[in-house]
């Protein structure tokens, strides 16, 4: 993998996790599957689960266990008000960055 890719991805994963949970709760594997479906992200469980654990530890997410038809109970994550505020903050910053980068890239093309 090119060396700059992990650097670019750094920090984006947290935003993506919060974004997945914007519309409701989901359990770890479900979050992973939704993120894996996004082309180019190439995110695996060793990246997502530690971030979920950290966000829960920082009170940005709450946890709820529910029975699963297969194996141990599923642990559903949900955004807290603090998590929602963090998501809005990060999304706004991401939009600013995207706009700035697009300007630069388009400027270079011209």
């Amino acid at each position: 993998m090119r060396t700059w890719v992990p650097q670019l991805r750094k920090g984006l994963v947290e935003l993506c996790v919060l974004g997945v949970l914007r519309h409701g709760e989901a359990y770890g594997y479900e979050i992973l599957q939704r993120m894996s479906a996004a082309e180019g992200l190439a995110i695996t469980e060793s990246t997502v689960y530690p971030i979920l654990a950290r966000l829960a530890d920082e009170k940005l997410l709450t946890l709820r266990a529910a029975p699963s038809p297969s194996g141990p109970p599923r642990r559903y994550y949900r955004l807290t008000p603090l998590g929602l505020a963090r998501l809005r903050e990060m999304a706004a910053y991401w939009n600013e960055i995207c706009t700035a980068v697009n300007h630069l890239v388009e400027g270079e093309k011209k």
Partner: protein
Amino acid sequence: MTDEANHAGNEPRARIDAYLDAIDRVLTASGMSRAERRNVCDDVETQIQEMLARRAGDAPSVADVEAVLAKLDPPEAYAASRTESGESQPAASEVGPVLPARFSRTAIAGAVWAPLFFIAFTTIYVARRVAVEPGSQPPGPAWWQYVLMLTLLAAGLVAPFGTTVLGIISIAQIRQSAGRLYGMALAVFDALLFPLLALDVLIVKRWSSVLANGPASATGAAGGRTLLATCALVDAIVILLVWRAAARPAGGTVAGPKESAADQEKRALLAKIALALCLGGILLAGLVAGTARALGHDPEQAVYVLFLACQIAAFVACQIAAFVLGVMSWRDPLGKAGAVIAAIVAVAALLLVA
């Protein structure tokens, strides 16, 4: 269900547990808190179970588990992902947990330190007679004696504190190591050796004063045996309590390596042997009583005396072995029963003899 079926049924679970333990060790090395590690391992386990359910239904085989685990990130990836997601990079020395577990060096240091006390204690009481001519000064210690006094003697005199502290530290380290360190038995030995010796000295002093004021028959060999039994019982109880507390993992369900099916079988076997030895010892005690009664009728027969001595020796060996094996398999109800019954029978026998 047969033992083979049990073993086969546990094997897929053991593979999953080993994978989760490896992740836990990597996350521990990266400095993640216990609660976060538990969250991560629970999420990974849910994913594994769901993938297995899709692949093999309710009864996955070892091959199914291996196939699913092969699709997942290796445990080492969790260290890299912590860095990628903005967490602190573990030092190279901290990534060690993915290596095989090792014996606690702190526990070894404590065990090495302990004998120095006995050496120092002995040298203090060993006096060497030196001939001194009238009018001359007695010769002082040689240079090497000064060196020994400043090193060996000093280290020996503080050994009770040092060994105990190292034992306590190593117990804590082993419990927190999530399987990276082992040697709990030696650590407990370090922590308890000198405190138990001190306790025994206190018991001896207390009992000596009680026996001295008691009837004449209470002193002598009988009193000594009773004292010995009391010390052994108190020590055994303290060791058992400390061992049980120390052997409990500090990190919840995923903090330590899970017991494999082979270990469980071994423990069950030890427990059965312990109980069998204990019951065999009780039968021997009956034989001892019968032989002693027969001797009462004809005490001159030397063959009976030899027979009695062998029976007593076998009885003592059975009870000691049952107690040791019972403690080793304490988590098994049979092992627990074997250890407790052996201790009670041994103490009761000693008291009866006394």
